[in-house]
């Protein structure tokens, strides 16, 4: 607590250090979520299960890029998130067409 107080007293260090401490929980949670999606991707009994897991893995990666943008406080990664959000559903649609033609 006294360490936090001294850190908050120095204005330049305060914002970066506190933010870098506070962004660890979302990163760890997103890593666990990505592990769960990867489990379903590897295990999933049917092909749509794996497509669902890939979709969720993409969402976890997008959220991770957003957390990284919040850490580095830059706009550039958010443009990547915008582009992936723009074209991400095309992969799901193409795989769905593949499932529809080929069968589970």
């Amino acid at each position, binding site marked *: 607590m006294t360490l936090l107080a001294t850190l908050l007293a120095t204005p330049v260090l305060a914002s970066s250090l506190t933010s870098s401490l506070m962004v660890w929980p979302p990163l760890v949670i997103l890593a666990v979520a990505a592990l769960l999606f990867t489990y379903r991707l590897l295990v999933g009994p049917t092909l749509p299960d794996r497509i669902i897991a890939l979709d969720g893995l993409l969402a976890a990666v997008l*959220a991770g890029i957003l957390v990284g943008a919040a850490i580095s*406080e830059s706009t550039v990664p958010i443009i990547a998130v915008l582009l992936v959000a723009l074209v991400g559903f095309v992969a799901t649609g193409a795989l769905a067409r593949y499932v529809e033609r080929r069968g589970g």
Partner: protein
Amino acid sequence: MMDGFAAAFLTAGALLTLLAGIGVVRFPDVTSRMHAAAKAPVLGIMLCGIGVAFAVQTVETTIIVALVIVLQLITSPVGSHLLARSIYHQLHPHIDGVDELAAADEDPPETV
């Protein structure tokens, strides 16, 4: 103060993505897994984007985050709908014994 808001929104978004992961792993059925994976990550990305808008605090970041949210809300149901349609037509889960697309099947989808 704004860093606290940003960290809270980022953690909430990450928790929603984790919720989707737990649902995808633990739900017993393809369609229920898709139900878990179709809705929660969209809200997770929305909350993470709001957290980034709190952390960066520039005008263009806020505009791009708004665009990301709108695009997620538009494109995610499209992909999930296509996937659900293909699951229905190929796997025929028939969870509750009701064939809800029977009328649509009289006019079968064109297979390219």
